[in-house]
């Protein structure tokens, strides 16, 4: 029987001798955190040895890095927000429980497959200290889960999610408001498939939070935009007369999902992309796009193209504008959805979404666009 399998806090040393880390890092840790580590040393040692039994790849360095780099900023922020010492210890326990599991799942820490959850712990959680103090388990796990989702959707924008959450999260009055805000920000940051739920969530938030969460520019109001977003995934007030709205998907070898250039199909009002024997549901709107693997139900290929769109060689004429396909041409499939034409081409793994609204006769509209455009 070994005496100390993983020696966590003050001495999260694992195979090292107990006390190594304490000596190496004590100068970088705050007195409040050091005190907790000293007090809870055995408990954290145990928790990490348990985590290592579930995740054998965990090393003592992972534990040390977690405590020093990932957890310390949060605990310091909690201590600075006047959390009582006994409460701080309980909060730290919860954070260690979740953090050890997140590290084991490679969501957090130096060996994480993506850096976003680690950034969340280090930079965003300290800003959310007062909410974590009130609901530690919920805030830590739920925000970690939400951040991890960005890793599974290549076209999403985790940096934007973290930036907005860090900036606006502290303004949430409580956990429920933080959850609502998170839904809106996640949608704004590219998780387009959550559009319906996020719109509902936005209805329960004050405009003072929704407007910065959706990065609505001066001169626009949430109430007006709310109506437009309800009516269209691509409201004219946001996309203006831009012809090429966005491109969705890319070659699997470059981090996308398609093995070969996709072909489009429609099912009711849904857009389906087929590629290499797989089928994907395309979810896209003004804030972003995501692809979701589905069973191929054999929906007929989309071919309908509505006026005033004309496909001619390397060009797609949309209203009064022309979109040059260049080397991607020729068009292999197309599907019309409202004022959006989706096309695929022979030499590209992307789905092109084109704006078929003819704005030539319309009065001058705002041409501000969202980030993905």
């Amino acid at each position, binding site marked *: *029987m070994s*005496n*100390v*399998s993983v020696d966590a806090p003050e001495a999260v040393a694992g195979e090292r001798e107990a006390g190594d880390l304490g000596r190496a890092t004590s100068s970088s840790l705050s007195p409040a955190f050091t005190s907790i580590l000293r007090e809870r040393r*055995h*408990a954290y*040692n*145990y*928790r990490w040895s*348990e985590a290592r039994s*579930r995740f054998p790849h965990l090393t003592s360095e992972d534990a040390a890095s977690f405590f020093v780099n990932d957890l310390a900023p949060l605990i310091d922020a909690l201590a600075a927000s*006047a959390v009582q010492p*006994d409460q701080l210890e*309980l909060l730290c*326990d*919860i954070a260690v*429980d*979740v953090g050890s*599991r*997140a590290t084991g*799942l490679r*969501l957090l820490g130096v060996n994480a497959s993506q850096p976003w959850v680690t950034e969340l712990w280090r930079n965003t959680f300290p800003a959310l200290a007062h909410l974590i103090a*009130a*609901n*530690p*388990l*919920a805030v830590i*796990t*739920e*925000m*970690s*889960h*939400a951040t*991890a*989702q960005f890793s599974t959707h290549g076209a999403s924008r985790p940096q934007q999610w973290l930036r907005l959450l860090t900036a606006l999260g502290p303004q949430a009055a409580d956990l429920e408001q933080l*959850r609502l805000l*998170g*839904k809106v920000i*996640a*949608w704004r940051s590219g*998780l387009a*498939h*959550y559009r*319906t*739920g*996020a719109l*509902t*969530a936005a209805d329960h938030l004050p405009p003072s939070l929704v407007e910065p969460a959706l990065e609505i520019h001066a001169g626009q109001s949430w109430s007006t935009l709310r109506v437009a977003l309800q009516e269209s995934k691509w409201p004219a007030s946001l996309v203006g007369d831009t012809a090429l709205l966005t491109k969705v998907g890319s070659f699997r070898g470059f981090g996308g999902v398609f093995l070969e250039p996709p072909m489009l199909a429609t*099912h*009711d009002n*849904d857009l*389906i992309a087929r590629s290499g024997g797989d089928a994907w*549901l395309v*979810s896209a709107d003004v804030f972003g796009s995501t692809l*979701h*693997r*589905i*069973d191929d*139900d054999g*929906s007929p290929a989309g071919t309908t193209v509505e006026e005033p769109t004309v496909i001619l060689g390397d060009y797609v004429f949309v209203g009064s504008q022309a979109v040059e396909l260049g080397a991607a041409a020729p068009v292999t499939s197309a599907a019309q959805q409202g004022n959006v034409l989706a096309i695929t081409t022979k030499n590209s793994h992307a789905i092109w979404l084109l704006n078929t609204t003819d704005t030539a006769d319309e009065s001058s509209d705002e041409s501000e666009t969202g980030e993905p455009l």
Partner: protein
Amino acid sequence: MENPFRRLSKAPTNPAVHAPSAGLAAGDRGTSVAAKRKAFDVEDLYRGPLLDSAEESGELDLDEKLRQAYFWIVNTAIISPHYDIEFHDGPSAQFQLGDSKARLTLPSGQSYSSFVLLPLLTFATRTKCLFIGGPGRGKTASALLMGVLAGYPAREIRRGMQHGHPQMTIADLLGNPLPADLVSAQSMTDIRIAWRSWLGMRIKVIDEYNRIPTRTQSALLTVMGDGYAEVLDQIYECPESAWYLTANDDKGGGTYAVIEALRDRVDVTVQAMSFNSRFLSTLLERVESGLRPEDTLPPEIIFNEAQIDAMGTQIRAVAVPDAVRRRIEFFTSQFEFSESAAVAFEYRTKDTLRLAGGDSSTTTPLDTGRDRTADLGCQTRNGLSVRNLMTLLVYAKAIAWFRGSDEVTLDDVGQVLPFVLRDKLVADTDAPFFDANENAPLRTDPIGWLRTLFASSCREFDRLDLDRVDPVLELQNQFELGLDGVSEADVRKRLVSIEALINEWSRGRKLYGHLYDDLLDLKYLHQRYTNYLRWLETQ
């Protein structure tokens, strides 16, 4: 013949907690286009692998599983018809019986037997529970069941159980150095220890701990308090465990007096109740079946390590609302103050008196002017420690979680408080309060006394209307907003407010425990503002 111990309720044990929830059920999800689109539930944003896998896979919620365990134990394993932890869901029928007008309540809410519930909460929170009561009342059997609930075979728990006896040595308790190493070792570090296997178990049972010699008790204290064992400079780190100790006497009697530090490490004390003769038929059924409950625990209610971890995490996450926390603070503040214990304001405490070898019962009468019957502080010989308060918070959260709530109620606190503070808050039975005829039985009923004490404290809190008018809380809240950007004029204004409040209180008001704590808090705030003001002046 049907195994009577395998019966497990299929119905939710607390239906109110398990009402069907709105939204998409797991079974509705699929990968067809329509199903996929329907499955875009924005709540999924917050779901993921960081919670316990059992929860994710749709197994029983852990609180429901623990309730299943509770009802299995209470209905089939340990025959316990005592529902002494009462919760009320609307009006409850009450009856007065006998010459003493003994009150019998039929609770309208789901109520529990402390002898089963508190050990289970100890199991879930990995704390320490002491069973007290006469021989043969199920103390050891109950501890044994907790071990089986944790997934240990009954035989292993029995073997791991430490039986206190007057000749028990540290080596008996912790382990022996290997004889070969003792002979050949060149240094202490070369001596390997054959640690006793119970040290590595997550359920630790110490039977009759008050029969252990004092020196061995000190070694036990290290294991209980600090989670490691030490023999000849060798250390064994123990896993986090739930502890169950038994004693026939809760006053520290037995072969050896239990050292104070060890008694202080006990988190809850539970009394084994007497056997109700009406349940003899159940006992007969058990004798005739030849089965022992611990050998037949239904596997559905056995918890694995990850689940026990998850229970602890979930319990710690239960919220304590400010209103409940304030009542706990108010209750706590009643007891430490002793007006005549010292001259310096900060040292006017019962602990000062204790350290000087004094007795609060002899000095309390010197505290003139206060109503010694109404002053709750006069009923105790000591105050509450930080450890006591932490334990109280943990168990209050645990019982709230067990009942399916995500926040603690005042009822939760009131029900666990007597079991946490039994033996911790010592009654001064010479106090005038106990002289009243109706209170005399409370001298021998610590649970009843502590319940009465907490109820009285809450009544006093209400009488003072502290929920609405609490100037100290206002000042505290103002301070907790932070000092950044607070101007010199504002600081001076706040200092004047503090001084004005103290000045108002000094005009003829008697000094009670809660005021004493408030005054110390005001002094603290005053000092923080004074320091800040000094800093501002230097800028």
